[in-house]
């Protein structure tokens, strides 16, 4: 066991973990942050995306000890109290979710995209989200939500 300390959603936390403990297991287990989901266990579906030092990371492919000393943001840290983050609000408003299981990872990926590319094209959004799988929506409203969150006009993206 080794001790790790990090800042998660603005709060200093520390925990004893095994060397093999994955970041996602630390978040979901001892820290109780179950909004980060495990979909495929193998770093492909994107349901576990969180931010580590501002970068989007699949938390099931990173050891907890690798995040020692890092600033970690999970889906639970995106809203400001009762005020949703603009991307969260856009997913809700534009029906960018159905079963909701992929949603936290989608939002965290989208946030990373908009940070590096504040006004992406639809093609850029689709390309960026290739590492996030959704089985319900057909992605249409997810793309629309991200375009809306970036402040772009989505009226031309077919009807709801």
């Amino acid at each position: 066991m080794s001790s790790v300390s990090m800042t998660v959603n603005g709060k200093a936390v520390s925990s004893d973990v095994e060397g093999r403990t994955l970041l996602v297991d630390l978040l979901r287990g001892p820290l109780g942050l179950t909004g980060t989901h495990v979909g495929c266990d193998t770093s492909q579906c994107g349901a576990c995306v969180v931010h580590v030092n501002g970068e989007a990371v699949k938390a099931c492919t990173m050891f907890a000890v690798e995040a020692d000393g890092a600033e970690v943001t999970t889906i639970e840290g995106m809203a400001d109290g009762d005020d949703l983050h603009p991307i969260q609000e856009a997913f809700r408003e534009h029906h960018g979710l159905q079963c909701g299981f992929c949603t936290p990872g989608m939002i965290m990926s989208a946030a990373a995209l908009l940070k590096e590319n504040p006004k992406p094209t639809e093609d850029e959004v689709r390309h960026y989200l290739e590492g996030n799988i959704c089985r319900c929506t057909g992605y249409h409203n997810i793309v629309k939500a991200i375009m809306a969150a970036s402040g772009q006009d989505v009226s031309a993206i077919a009807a709801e």
Partner: protein
Amino acid sequence: MSVAKPLPHDAARLHVTGQARYVDDIPLPANALHLAFGLSTIAYGKITHIDLSKVRAVPGVIAVLTADDFDHHVDVSPSPSPEPLLAEGTVHFVGQPIFLVVAESHLAARKAARLGQVEYEELPAILSLEDALAADSRFEDGPRVYAAGDAEAAIAGASNTLEGQIDVAGQEHFYLEGQAATALPQDDGGFIVYSSSQHPTEIQHKVAHALGLPMSDVRCEVRRMGGGFGGKESQGNHLAVACALAARLTGRACTMRYDRDDDMVVTGKRHDFQIKYRVGFADDGRISGLEFIQLCRAGWSMDLTLPVADRAMLHADNAYFLPDIRIESHRLRTNTQSNTAFRGFGGPQGMVGVERVMDHVAHELGMDPVEVRKRNFYAKVGKPPQSTPYGMPVEDFILHEMTERLEATSDYHARRAAVREWNADNRYLKKGIALTPVKFGISFTLTHLNQAGALVHVYQDGSIALNHGGTEMGQGLFQKVAQVAASRFGVDMSRVKITATDTGKVPNTSATAASSGSDLNGMAVKAACDTIRDRLASFVAERAQADPKSVVFKDGHVEVGGDRIPFDDVVTDAYMNRISLSATGFYKTPKIVWDRIKGEGRPFFYFAYGAAVTEVVIDTLTGENRILRADILHDCGASLNPAIDVGQIEGGYVQGAGWLTTEELVWDDKGRLLTHAPSTYKIPACSDRPDVFNVALWEGENSEETIYRSKAVGEPPLMLGISALMALSDAAAACGDKYPDLQSPATAEQVFNAVQRAGS
């Protein structure tokens, strides 16, 4: 009124903030245990020896169980045919659970489960449909046959005949949330089970049976699933039963979730089919006689195969009047995963068969396939209805009008001409376009399942708690049904509290399946609400000396005899006057009668319709392909929530197109599934969706009396994806004179092969 509004999903806020809880997110007691299965590594054979000493030696392992540890057969089958929780002496597929590990952590359980030493006497496994047919390895005594008229004579007398065959792919559900369950032992010997299940009553039933308890001692709760698609209708039984048995053994809470690879290896998938056809047709494209032979892969156990295969037969006509038809269905038993329900439940497979026939006939005659399809459509509403092969008159057929509208809005004919021109100018890339219709029967074919219950409480402050037998898997059922409740009481949605599906509140629920969730539960909730509403109306009417029928519930108020009283005040007053503010509701679908042995009757209350135009481009050198554009017109009747319905249509189309194109399941010659992770099994990704995607709802209402005249929407849109397969066939056909005989899934390899055949 709340109905018909495009309101967001009821849990949208919880989802976007990560607060929504799935089974694996529910906090557990500190001493909870975790479970994992040890799996068979061969496809068929007798277990000669099991050594689990290494499993037991792993730190944290509390118990390891095999079938021998139970004094009775522990059954997890959803059908009358038995299916053991753990292999009883013989294994029937690679991935069958043999032993159960109970450990202090998920990781310890999984690690230990890999260390079992199992020796087998291997037996010859049946892996292909051909081998199963040759060995007469099947469920039921022989093939089931549904027929109308005299197909053989009609084909013999036709001026043209064709025969052919198409492989119809299986499909992995890939619900994003894997199977999961938790069992909590109670002080009185009973159990609470949390399950990611479309069928809480089945979980309750199987757990009670396994424990030798009455069903009343087991309560199953399901708040939501992270996707289901049919894969959680029966496949969650193993986990729930295992958790309950281990919980009783240890007296501790037990939880289990499959690792994704295990989930894909253990659980059943969409039934793959091989469909052979022989068709006679006139020079104008009209089909005179048609014979289908459907080979259906059940896998090793019966599960839901019989009704799945029945539904494939019931959709062998799709939208076409075929008075002389014979459908022969073989339910073949193989040493592979036991295939199960998957969105459409056999209907899509049956439909692919007849759409393939339309495509083939059109190619033979050099006609536009849309013309062949339209020529064979059932009679439109207003003309004498024509009957399906199973003797049900089609009285609500709106596809003539829908197809005409879609041809116009998608600019089909001009684009088809443009595709032809483009293909003439391009040697290596070829485009294709196709329009296919959907007519899907709504109701469970097992008639007794077409019932639902609801429980509605109005509290003394006017807030409303809603419960019903349907489960939420992302399809928006809870929101739609809550909209119904709010509309009945004339109150804002914020007054309606949606609660988890719970067998302790509403008993004897049917699976949330067959697209029936909102039809059945919406009506049951309406009945419960109306009972309370009628009591309130009588109460206020009596005081106002008015007719109870004149009382109006609207905009948060109750209008009676010229007065307008806030709903909350009426409720408080009613409570003070000892009026019951709680009611159950019940609904059973009318008009349906079905004899599945004879293949006769009215299995469906009504049909849901849709049509799609898909345009694709293929690279003839590699078979690579893309969907360029999809235009959809779909019939939801009078939609309860247009935003949710459009979401179902978009998602259904993409899932259907994925099924028939990129989603390929591959087993090796030992029966091992090679595509057991998203690295090798390719479901559509964000960049795969059509570049242009136009979805519109048909404006009409259900001709039958459903909840607010809406129509079921869960499954039908999946079959719009068939247009993608037919568009690829059209593109391949541009590479030569021969019929390309495209098989599914139309992977790049299959498209390439089809291109070769067309030009050979």
